[in-house]
């Protein structure tokens, strides 16, 4: 699948780099959860020093190939770009991507001997692999346990038009082969057996389970979970979706699965069914634009009542909503319009209403109200020596936030081990 966005040309990048104001104590850098030194790497683009730019990026951030493509810049660096006060923000993510696409990841590696300690990392997503890298750099050996495909959500669930396989392989293979001592394909559900063998454990399993739709017809043939479908398509298996697909939800996963279903079969109708309006969609702007360009359509202000059908899905009955005042989050509340229900004829319904916390795994780790694993300021769980981060702790978040967690956990683990010796 061809990528949606092209890498900036050398000339485009150089011209864009000239717009940077090189702010002192730059807000973009502070806003980046991984604290990528934005003005400095842009200055290196301007001077033609792309290897220097890459070194800056990869020192701050192991998932630079990934974030150069899928980081929602409007939520981070670009949202605070000072240049917006003159005209428009710098295209920081695209400049970042220009650097990673123009340089080689294996440049100039120098790692210390493994002498400091051993850490088990459960989950080879952005949080887990970041933690592994940061610990390996500090002289730890890291055993990584992963039940599924390496790389976490981007590898498993982000469509190839935004995150091509060659980019994924380049980044994830590099990280796993250079920084992980062993990678075990194993579904770990309890940390206790690991504690004796390791100085510390980092739990970064994400939230693989999905919420169910509690409406009639949810058990019909033709009802799917969005992320499961994404994982299936990402691994090369056909989705099995029909020709008239309705996707319930308005977040990134809903938009992602809609795009990927259109990609899989461009003759298929794919409609995102959402309770509120276009402004309230929670997905990132760029993903919505790309989905729209792929031909995804929308049914806004539609509250799902039930999935209709006899054994197999035949449609989705929805009630029309109207928007009311804004809630605390700034999004409009919605209310059903009585007597306005209608049926959207569909042969497939995809449920994309969020992840579910699986409280059966990791017995002994204290959990918060929402069922997510609780950690203290130092990322340590209720069990000494066991740390946790990423989606398993915070709920669904971005790659760069998982990277931040991985970095922080590694720091804390290193401090713990140093203190204990």
């Amino acid at each position, binding site marked *: 699948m061809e990528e949606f966005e092209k890498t900036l040309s050398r000339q485009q990048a150089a011209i864009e780099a000239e717009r940077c104001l090189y702010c002192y104590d730059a807000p973009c850098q502070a806003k980046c959860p991984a604290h990528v030194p934005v003005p400095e790497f842009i200055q290196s683009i*301007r001077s033609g020093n792309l290897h220097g730019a890459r070194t800056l990026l990869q020192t701050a951030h192991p998932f630079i190939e990934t974030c150069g493509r899928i980081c929602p810049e409007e939520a981070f660096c670009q949202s605070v770009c000072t240049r917006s006060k003159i005209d428009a923000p710098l295209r920081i993510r695209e400049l970042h991507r220009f650097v990673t696409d123009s340089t080689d990841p294996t440049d100039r590696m120098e790692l210390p001997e493994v002498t400091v300690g051993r850490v088990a990392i459960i989950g080879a997503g952005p949080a887990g692999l970041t933690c592994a890298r940061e610990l390996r750099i500090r002289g730890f050996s890291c055993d990584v346990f992963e039940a599924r495909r390496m790389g976490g959500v981007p590898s498993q669930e982000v469509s190839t038009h935004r995150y091509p396989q060659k980019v994924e392989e380049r980044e994830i293979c590099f990280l796993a082969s250079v920084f992980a001592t062993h990678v075990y394909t194993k579904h770990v559900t309890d940390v206790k057996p690991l504690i004796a063998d390791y100085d510390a454990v980092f739990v970064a399993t994400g939230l693989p389970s999905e919420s169910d739709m509690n409406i009639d017809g949810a058990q019909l043939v033709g009802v799917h979970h969005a992320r499961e479908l994404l994982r299936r398509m990402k691994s090369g298996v056909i989705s099995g979706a029909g020709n008239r697909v309705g996707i319930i939800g308005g977040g990134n996963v809903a938009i992602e699965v809609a795009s990927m279903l259109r990609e899989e079969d461009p003759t298929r109708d794919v409609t995102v069914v959402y309770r509120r309006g276009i402004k309230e969609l929670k997905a990132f702007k760029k993903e919505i634009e790309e989905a729209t360009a792929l031909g995804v359509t929308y049914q806004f202000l539609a509250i799902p009542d039930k999935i209709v059908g006899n054994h197999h899905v035949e449609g989705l009955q929805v009630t029309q909503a109207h928007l009311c005042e804004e809630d605390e989050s700034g999004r409009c509340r919605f209310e059903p319009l009585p007597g306005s229900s209608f049926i959207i004829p569909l042969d497939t319904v995809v449920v994309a209403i969020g992840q579910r916390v699986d409280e059966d795994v990791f017995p002994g780790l204290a959990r918060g109200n929402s069922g997510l694993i609780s950690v203290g300021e130092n990322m340590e769980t209720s069990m000494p020596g066991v740390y946790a981060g990423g989606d398993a702790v915070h709920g669904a978040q971005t790659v760069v936030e998982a990277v931040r967690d991985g970095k922080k956990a590694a720091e804390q683990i290193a401090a713990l081990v140093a203190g204990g010796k």
Partner: protein
Amino acid sequence: MYREHDLSYDFLGIHLENPFILSAAPPTDELDIAIDGLKAGWAGVVLKTTSVEGNPVNLKYPMMSSFGTAAHKLWGLGNIDLISQYHINEICERVKTLKGMFPTKMVAASIMGSKKEDWQSLVWQLKKAGVDLIECSFSCPQGSMGEAPGRMLAQSIEATEKVARWVKEAAGDTPVLIKITPQVTDIVEIAKALKRSGVDGVTASNSVPALIGVDVETLEPLPSLFGEGAYSGMTGMVIKPLTLRTIAEIARNVDITISGNGGAYSWSDAVELMAVGASNVQFCTLPMHHGFGTIRDLKSGLADYLDRKGYASPLDIVDKALGSIKGQEELVAPHSHSDIDIDKCIGCGNCFRACNDGAHRAILWDAEKRQPSVDADKCPGCGQCMQVCPVNAIRMKEELDGKVHYFEFGGTHQV
């Protein structure tokens, strides 16, 4: 539909429709191109320098190079060009053709020779063809042809005076301009030599001898022809400050007519050159970059300026800035300090960093608000902060005798 402001005046007895002339360079080296330039509205042409037979013109292509940034490639333009490959006979034919087509425009020609006979024969032929003015290149950056390759005639006071006399002797009542180089120890001495020689004026000045660059991958000089390169003549906006100083120095010290040349890219650049002493302004890099159509903005921009300032003629601008150019030691010492307009400030912190790392550590930084402030006791008002401010939110403030003065960022114009 709209009234055209009259920009015409008299220059060395020649009628100029406006002060903007196409200089002796590629835009005047082909008859049809020169015709298009004059049709577009330029007031005159100086046909590209010609010489006598027997002086081979071995051009090496590519001859052009430039330097700048990705977004502004052409801060400076370089060439290893030589004089025209066209023979004097051809140039004389062109003078006749152009005078026939454009009787109200200035048709000048540029010449270069080595021996006295060469110079004088060139002058006689041009006079016979009816040329309005003769410009003599004493300053080709590739060196004068003949006697001293690699050196420029206008780098020698004695040679300059001697050759200028030969030319003026032959030219008689036809005006003669000598085009000089800014690369001399003392430009005033050269201008005085020209004054003594009796020529009518000086064209200040030619392209600046320069090495445009070195390719860091191959370590070849730029422009590189099979790995080897030569010094270029540099033109374009980057040389304007050099030209301004050259013209001003001549105008402050020698009573001689000056045709301004070198680095003007807009009507306001032209006003600057005239304000320090030029009576007209020659252009080459601007039309080579953006075409002959630039004359429209030059004319309308100048016309608007004259209206706003209440000047009747472009000549009213000439020398207006000269009286204020002083030696540094003569300037009044202000006691100013940086004054930041927080409403304009966008919080980039460039002023703070510039002051902290390169000036007086007199700007304080509120990291929380992302706001600079000035410690007036430490700030001597050097002005570096206002150079780096991307939005011109900073000026230098001085309170003297109960009156407030502001020193503002120069080079920008209120719109």
